[in-house]
């Protein structure tokens, strides 16, 4: 019986549940003996000119070995934007010497013998800043009245798409427009950022850091510090969550390495949570305008999406996410005319980066809100409207008006399944009863049907490598270019190899994230790991069997075609003749049994699904409670349902959190208002129900596993369903739209405004 497709508990867990995992700040390593502790001094002003940085008092503080300011880093070139389309004048200093551009912008670094001393000394660094007007709202950024980078002459970091055709909605009987906010959120992995660096006698630097892609970090740091790539060795310890925010090196990682060289001693850095909420990239941050047009019979004919993307002060990958939003704009619908355009704007805030879904949740939230608005306008049930416009099932590639090529999909079945599992008709009946009765607690039912892109081109195509070796003791080692941070890849990949080679799960080690052992790899992001990294392991196992066959044939003096895979050995035996085989271990004893391979999917895959959220809103207070979350998430063939469900659960929770609670807020001066976990309302167990997952698997042909990505689907599908549900709960009171997060106050206001007959801000019809 194959273990593929079965609920295998994780091989990682015994260690995690006894001694605990080893995260970067846990590391005990001889190379880090005597390490200095680095503490960053960060700007408390959002935008201004640095007049002076006085380090004298700090230098006198106990345990202080050095205080570094921008003057010390003069031989490092400022960081250029990572993307060529961003104005090259939007340079990021290593430490602000002239201008600070967000609260949290690093200004100095204190190095101390002990950790606690760092905070004491950092307080003593006196930073004098002359404040400039802060640019926080996107409309302010767009106006260009205050420029973050005067040399760039603009606050526009990037633009995407052409102007909308004038006739996009020509002939539409009904046209609805709505301004939407896809608000800035904080990723908040439980492990904050951390790095440690030590230089060896051989002139190489070893950097341990909490990252999703060690190879990227190596390349970036080598480039930034002007080092040969092979002088930089990145090691990834256990990582306590990433969610996209740990993609790519943060400048702090490079600084830790530079400091270690400068001080001739190892250096360690581990940020506090407050520092993390300022210094780690934030997610989302799009202001959108959706326009949807069509016929009264429910045919959607045209869709327009305009986006203003907040980049934060220094444009990073977040500034480019609108590309993905535009690509996925029409979602699952066969809309004839689709147009989307965007621009990214810099503001005096923390940079925006990738956050679970990275550009695609924004697309789905927009189209799904638009569908509900259209349904309300024509008086049609939102499920029915969707059904009428879904692309019909397809198993051959389908190209959309925005240039995406979906691989396979059956959206109607996904919708049917979720409606059935949710008991949709019963819910509508219950809703009607409560409305009739004027209940205080009203029911809201929200829908989303989504498709998303996973395993996209990461600059190196859609491929991943794997190295597989069977040792002479019968154990096996897999080296993978992906980089788990909770997903359970070690278990998943071991399952694959075990299934093909017959080696027991606990005899298979899966290594990642060490650039000396794995110089090339794409890391874990964009839900690529199983469909590319796992497929590579699968391919490697197949190749190893063939390599073993060739060698076995020679040793056994048999015809290779007469040798069969013998999983019991495990190894190869002569067909029909038991006891005549040779095990992989025995082969390895004679000659190293190792293969190195690359799997190239050639294209991304498009998982899809449908979610139904049921909320209860207390219409006296406006508080919404999520009662049920029913989801269909089709990611093709599932290798390990236990792991897949875990990904769906986590994704759903983060998606629901964006609707119900979470938002990063700044005041008009650019001061963050949610800079600790006491203020940032991170979703806890009491706000969530247990989830109802429905299975559906439409395999892809792009890899032999039939697998699409699952990691981000939950987030993409759940946000629109929950948002639509909250609005649906009070729609009978005249409410048309409520922005996220749908706080009790917002909902209460919306009810009151509707009662007065005035519509909420941002609506035009």
């Amino acid at each position, binding site marked *: 019986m194959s273990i593929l497709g079965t609920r295998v*508990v*994780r091989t*990682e*867990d*015994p260690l*995690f*549940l*006894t*001694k*605990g*995992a*080893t*995260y970067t700040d*846990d590391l*005990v390593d001889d190379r880090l003996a005597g390490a200095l502790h680095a503490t960053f001094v960060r700007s408390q002003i959002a935008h201004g000119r640095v007049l002076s940085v006085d380090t004298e008092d700090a230098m006198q503080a106990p345990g202080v070995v050095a205080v570094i300011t921008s003057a010390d880093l003069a031989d490092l070139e400022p960081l250029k934007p990572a993307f060529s389309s961003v104005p090259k004048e939007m340079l990021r200093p290593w430490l602000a010497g002239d201008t600070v551009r967000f609260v949290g912008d690093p200004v100095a670094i204190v190095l101390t013998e002990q*950790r*606690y001393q760092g905070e004491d000394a950092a307080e003593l660094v006196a930073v004098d800043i002359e404040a400039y007007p802060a640019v926080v709202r996107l409309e302010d950024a767009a106006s260009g009245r205050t420029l973050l980078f005067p040399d760039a002459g603009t606050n526009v970091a990037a633009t995407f798409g052409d102007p909308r055709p004038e006739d996009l909605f020509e002939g539409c009987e009904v046209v609805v427009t709505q301004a939407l906010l896809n608000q800035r959120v904080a*990723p*908040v*992995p*439980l*492990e*904050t950022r951390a790095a440690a660096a030590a230089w060896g006698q051989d002139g190489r630097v070893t950097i341990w850091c909490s990252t999703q892609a060690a190879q990227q970090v190596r390349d970036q740091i080598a480039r930034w510090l002007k080092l040969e790539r092979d002088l930089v060795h990145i090691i990834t310890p*256990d*990582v*306590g*969550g990433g*969610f996209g925010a740990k993609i790519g090196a943060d400048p702090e990682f490079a600084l830790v390495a530079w400091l270690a060289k400068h001080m001739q001693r190892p250096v360690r850095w581990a940020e*506090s*949570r*407050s520092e993390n909420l300022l210094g780690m990239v934030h997610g989302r941050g799009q202001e959108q305008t959706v326009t949807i047009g069509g016929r009264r019979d429910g045919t959607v004919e045209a869709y327009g999406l305009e986006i203003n993307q907040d980049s934060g002060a220094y444009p990073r990958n977040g500034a480019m996410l609108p590309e993905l939003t535009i690509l996925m704009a029409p979602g699952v619908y066969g809309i004839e005319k689709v147009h989307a355009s965007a621009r990214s704007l810099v503001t005096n805030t923390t940079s925006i980066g990738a956050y679970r879904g990275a550009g695609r949740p924004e697309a789905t939230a927009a189209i799904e809100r638009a569908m509900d608005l259209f349904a309300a306008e024509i008086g049609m049930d939102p499920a029915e409207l969707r059904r009428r416009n879904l692309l019909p099932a397809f198993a051959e590639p389908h190209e959309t008006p925005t240039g995406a090529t979906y691989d396979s999909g059956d959206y109607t079945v996904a919708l049917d399944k979720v409606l059935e599992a949710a008991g949709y008709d019963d819910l509508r009946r219950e809703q009607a009863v409560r409305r009739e009765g004027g209940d205080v607690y009203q029911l809201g039912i929200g829908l989303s049907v989504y498709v998303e892109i996973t395993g996209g081109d990461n600059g190196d195509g859609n491929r991943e490598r794997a190295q597989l070796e069977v040792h002479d003791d019968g154990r096996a080692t897999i080296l993978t270019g992906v980089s788990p*941070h*909770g*997903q*359970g890849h070690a278990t998943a990949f071991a399952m694959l190899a075990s299934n093909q080679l017959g080696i027991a799960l606990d005899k298979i080690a899966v290594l990642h994230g060490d650039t000396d052992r794995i110089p090339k790899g794409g890391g874990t992001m964009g839900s690529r790991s199983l469909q590319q990294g796992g497929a590579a392991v699968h391919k490697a196992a197949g190749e190893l069997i063939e390599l073993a066959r060739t060698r076995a044939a020679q040793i056994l003096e048999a015809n290779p075609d007469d040798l069969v895979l013998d999983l019991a050995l495990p190894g190869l035996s002569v067909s029909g003749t038991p006891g005549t085989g040779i095990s992989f271990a025995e082969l390895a004893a004679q000659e190293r049994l190792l293969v190195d391979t690359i799997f190239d999917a050639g294209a991304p895959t498009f998982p899809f699904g449908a979610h139904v959220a049921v909320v209860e809103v207390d219409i006296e207070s406006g508080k919404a409670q999520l009662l049920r979350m029913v989801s269909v998430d089709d990611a093709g063939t599932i290798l390990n349902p*236990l*792991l897949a*469900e*875990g990904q769906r*659960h*986590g*994704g*759903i*929770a*983060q998606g629901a959190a964006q609707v119900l609670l979470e938002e990063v807020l700044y005041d008009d001066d650019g001061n963050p208002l949610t800079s*600790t*976990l*006491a203020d940032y309302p*991170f979703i*806890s*167990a*009491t706000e*969530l129900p*247990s*989830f109802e997952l429905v299975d559906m698997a439409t395999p892809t042909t792009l890899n032999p596993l039939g697998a699409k990505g699952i990691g981000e689907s*939950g987030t993409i599908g759940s946000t629109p369903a929950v948002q639509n549900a909250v609005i649906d709960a009070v729609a009978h009171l005249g409410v048309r739209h409520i922005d996220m997060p749908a706080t009790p106050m917002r909902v209460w206001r919306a009810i009151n405004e509707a009662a007065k007959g005035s519509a909420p801000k941002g609506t035009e019809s």
Partner: protein
Amino acid sequence: MQVSITVNGQSRTDDVEPRLLLAHYLREVCQLRATNIGCDTTSCGACTVMVDGLTVKSCTVLACQAEGFRVTTMEGLSSEDGELHPVPAAFRAEHGLQCGFCTPGMVMAAIGMLADNPDPTDREVREGLEGNLCRCTGYHNIVRAVRTAAAAGPAASSVPSDAQVTA
């Protein structure tokens, strides 16, 4: 100043500065690094340990306040033979951990919760774990793990090193 604390059944006396947090004492003085620190506002619960049978957030206790306390961390649950305590065993069985960072605190919080309420409903589990944040699991499987552990009876809320201590 000197503090004498029993950690995972072992008595020890150490010289600490008054402001040393119990969490750092455990991690850096006792070298027990399973307990993690995930925030600086007593919000996340990753640092939860057991003190004299009650769960506390070790980031909000000074080591010197813990003088005379019996402290148990997740490491203290392990037995010699490597068999998992019922609560971590249930976490494994139900996939109640992914990145593992919140897990040591979550496990200790679950044990404490079961000591107070040995047969909780799902809702009661969620309320009992309000002080512990997780980003990876969405809490779904953590709730399942605690319910599964509860089925193991009193063993689920037992803390081995507490039993070892005399007077």
